[in-house]
C-alpha cells in the first residue's frame, strides 16, 4: 500500500481540501451574488451605513441561529425560540421595571444576568422534555412555544411591556446602537458569539459529541457518550443564544409584546439550513449559519430598497430568491 501513498496522497489532500472549501464557501458565494444584485438594484445599497444596518439587524436571527446550529447538528429541532425571545425579554423588562435595585448600573447588570439564567432555564426545559420525556423535539418545542408565548401574553395582559425608566433606557441603549472602533456592537457580538460557537463545535469534546449524536444516536451511545446530556446541553446553548439575542433586542425597541419574535424560529432554522447544515443532524456549520442569516436579511433589504416590486409580491419574490440561492449553492457544490 505504501507504494502509491506518496504522489497519490498529495493529490488526494488537495482535492478533498477543495471539496471541503467549496461546500463551506457556497453560502458565501450566494451572499456575494446577492450583494451584487443589491448594488444593481439601488446605489444606496452598497453604502457602509446600509450594509452595517443590515448586518446589525441580522444580529437577533444570527445569534439565535448559532444556537439552532447546535440543536440541529445534534439531530433535534427547536421551534420555541421565537416565543422564548418574547418571554425572556418580557421578564427582563419586568425585572427592570420592578425597581428592586436602585442603582441603574447594578440593576442593568443584574437584569442581564437574570436574562442569561432564564434563557438557559428555558433551554433546559426544552431539553428535558425532549430527552427525558422522549417526545419528538418538533412536538415538544411546539408545546413550549405555546407555553412561552402564552405566558408572555399573560404577563403583558395582552398589551405591551415597556421599559419605563428612561435612565435605564439611556444607559442600555448603546448595547444596540453603540459601536466599538467603528464596529456596531451587535456585529461585534455576532462575531464573538460565532467564534466561541465555532470553537466549541469544532475544537472541543462536546462539539465532537454533538456531531456524533447527530449522525447516529446508537454509535454515540456505544462510544460512551451521554447522548441525552449532549442533546440537553445543545438546547441549553440554544437558550443561552436566545438570551444573548434578547440582551441586544431590549435596548433596541425597549419594549415587547405577545407578538415579539413571531416566526423567528422559522427564520433561524432557515438561516441554519441555508448556511449548509443538514436538518437530519450531523456536521454543523456555524459560519455558514451566520452567512445564512445575512442572506435572509439582505433579501429583505433589497426588496425594500428596490422600488419596482409591488409590496404584495414581496413574499413571493423573497421565496423565489431563497430557492434560487439554494440552487446556486447546490450547483456550486455539485461541481466540486
Amino acid at each position, binding site marked *: 500500500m505504501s507504494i502509491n501513498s506518496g504522489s497519490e496522497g498529495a493529490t*488526494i*489532500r488537495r482535492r478533498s481540501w477543495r471539496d471541503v472549501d467549496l461546500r463551506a464557501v457556497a453560502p458565501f458565494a450566494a451572499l456575494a451574488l446577492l450583494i451584487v444584485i443589491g448594488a444593481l438594484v439601488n446605489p444606496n445599497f452598497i453604502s457602509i451605513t446600509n450594509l452595517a444596518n443590515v448586518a446589525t439587524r441580522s444580529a437577533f436571527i444570527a445569534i439565535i441561529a448559532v444556537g439552532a446550529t447546535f440543536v440541529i447538528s445534534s439531530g433535534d429541532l427547536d421551534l420555541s425560540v421565537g416565543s422564548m425571545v418574547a418571554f425572556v425579554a418580557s421578564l427582563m423588562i419586568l425585572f427592570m421595571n420592578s425597581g428592586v435595585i436602585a442603582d441603574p448600573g447594578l440593576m442593568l447588570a443584574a437584569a442581564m444576568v437574570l436574562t442569561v439564567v432564564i434563557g438557559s432555564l428555558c433551554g433546559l426545559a426544552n431539553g428535558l422534555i425532549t430527552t427525558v420525556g422522549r417526545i419528538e423535539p418538533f412536538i415538544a418545542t411546539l408545546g413550549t412555544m405555546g407555553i412561552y408565548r402564552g405566558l408572555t401574553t399573560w404577563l403583558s395582559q395582552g398589551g405591551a411591556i415597556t421599559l419605563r425608566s428612561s435612565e435605564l433606557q439611556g444607559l442600555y441603549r448603546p448595547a444596540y446602537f453603540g459601536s466599538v472602533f467603528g464596529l456596531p456592537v451587535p456585529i461585534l457580538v455576532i462575531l464573538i458569539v460565532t467564534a466561541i460557537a465555532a470553537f466549541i463545535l469544532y475544537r472541543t469534546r462536546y462539539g465532537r459529541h454533538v*456531531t456524533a449524536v447527530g449522525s447516529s444516536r446508537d454509535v454515540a*451511545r*456505544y462510544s*460512551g*457518550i451521554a447522548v441525552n446530556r449532549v442533546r440537553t446541553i445543545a438546547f441549553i446553548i440554544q437558550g443561552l443564544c436566545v438570551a444573548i439575542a434578547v440582551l441586544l433586542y431590549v435596548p433596541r425597541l425597549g419594549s415587547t409584546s405577545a407578538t415579539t419574535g413571531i416566526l423567528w424560529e422559522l427564520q433561524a432554522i432557515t438561516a441554519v439550513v441555508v448556511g449548509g447544515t443538514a436538518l437530519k443532524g450531523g456536521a454543523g456549520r456555524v459560519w455558514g449559519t451566520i452567512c445564512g442569516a445575512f442572506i435572509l436579511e439582505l433579501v429583505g433589504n433589497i426588496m425594500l430598497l428596490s422600488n419596482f416590486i409591488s409590496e404584495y409580491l414581496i413574499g413571493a419574490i423573497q421565496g423565489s430568491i431563497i430557492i434560487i440561492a439554494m440552487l446556486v449553492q447546490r450547483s456550486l457544490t455539485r461541481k466540486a
Partner: protein
Amino acid sequence: MTTTGEGAQTPVLSAERVSKSFGEVQVLFSVDFDVMPGEVHALVGENGAGKSTLVKILSGFESPSSGRLLLDGEPVSLPANGDAEALGIILIHQEFNLAEHLTVAESLFLGREVTRFGILDRRFMRAETRRILDMLGSHVDENALISTLAVADKQMVEIAKAISRDARVIFMDEPTAVLSREETDILFDQVRKLRAAGTSFVFVTHKLNEVMELSDRVTVLRDGQWIKTAPTRLLDSDSIAQLMVGRELSSLYPAKHEPDVDEDVVLSVRALSTAYVKDVSFELRKGEVLGFSGLIGSGRTEIMEAITGLRPRLAGEVVVYGEPLAAEGFREAVRRGLAYMTKDRKGRGLLLDEGMTANLTLQSLERHVRYGYLDPASEREAMARAKRRFDIRVRDDRVRVGRMSGGNQQKLMLAKVMETGPKIIIIDEPTRGIDVGTKQQIYHFIAALARDGCSVIVVSSEMPEVIGLCTRVAVMREGHLVGMLEGDDINEQTIMRYAAGLKRQAAG
C-alpha cells in the same frame, strides 16, 4: 458439479480489463474475471483488495472507469441501482441493504411486490417468504420488523431475498461473515442445489475453508490487481492465503498463555439476568482470554451489553476490580477500564459519514485535549499510530468511513475501542470480515494484550477462533450459560454438544 471446463463454454458474465477509480483514487487495475454457467467462483483477497468493488461493478451497482463487461459473450452496460436484477444478476451486499421500517416479508418483495388487481397480495407474499425462510432453515418471523432483527437474521433475510429471485448469477459478498456454522451449512446446501440447476455464484469470503468446501474456481485479488484464477482442486488454504497476502503466513494462532490460578479476578458476574438472558455467572482473571461460544441468538451479545451497562439488567451484579458496577452505566464502565466492541459496526460502531480520525478518537477524546481544546495534531498522531498498529489500509485518508472496505472498517472499530486504553476488553466478533493476514495480526494482538496483563473476552461464532485463542470457553444456549470448558475440553465437538443442548453443566 464439476462444470469447470474452461474454454468449452462461454461465460455467463465476464469482465475484461476492468478498472475503477473513485475520484482520483484507483482501486481496481485492469482486472479480468469471468463466471461460468453453474459454477461457484470464489473471490478472495485482503481487506481493501477491491473485491466488493469488483462485485458491485459486475452487478451494475458501480460502473467501471474503463474496460468492458460481457453478458453471454456480448458486451453490455448493466443498468444501475440493482435494475440488473431483471437480467438475472443479483447481489447480496456486504453491508445490509434493508429498510428498518419494513417487515421481513415486505423487504423480501421490495421493488417487485406481487399485486392482485393493483392490491398488494400480502398473504401470498407472506406465505412465499415463510416458504423461502423455511427452506433456509431460518426461524425469522416473516412479520417481524427488520429493525427488531439480530444481525445474523438480517443476513438470512438478505440471502432469502437473493435466492427467491429468478437468478442466473448471484454475487454473495461475505454472506457467511455473521452466520454460524449450521446456518452456513444450510446456505451451502441451497447453493449446491441451485448450482445443479444452472445458477452461477460468485462468492466473496475470508473463510478459506469455505472456499475449499464450496467453490469450483478461485480468483485472487491483491491491491486491486488480478493475481490468479485457478480451479479450487489445484489449490489449498495455505497457498490461497499466500497468494492473497503475497508472503508466507506463519501459524495463525499465537501460543496460548494460561494465567496463574492465583491471578486477581478482575471481573466477576453474579447471577446476571436480562429480559432474555437468565442467571449467568462467571469470573475473569487478569491476563486471561475467555471465549464465549454458542449458537446465534444464544444471548452472548446481550449478556456482554448488560455487563457493560448498555442494556438494562433485571437482576444480578457485576463486580469490577472488587467494586460493583452500576447498571446502565456504560460510561462508568469505560472509566473503570472496561471496553466493549460491538458486532454491529454499521449501526453502532462507526459514524459512516465522518472521516477516520473523528471515529477513531470519538471514545477517547479526553486524551487529545490540550488546554481545554482538542489538539488536531495529537489526533493525527493517534490516527497514524492506529493505522500502523492495526494495518488499516485506505487509499484516500479523507475517505468517509462508510466508503471504506468492510475489513478496514472492522480494524478501525477495534482501534477505536483500544484507544481508551482498557484493562478488560470485550470483543464481539473480533474478526468479522477480516482477511487471513490481518486475522493473524489481530490474534497476536489479543494474545499480546493478555500477556501485558489485560483480560479479554472474545465473543465469536467462529469456533476455530475461540478454540485457537482462548484458555477457557463459556458456552451459551438460549440465554443460559450451559458450560465452562477448560483445557482439552476446548474442542469443536464438545462446544457443539453444549451449544446444541445435548450436554449441560451445573451453573458455574
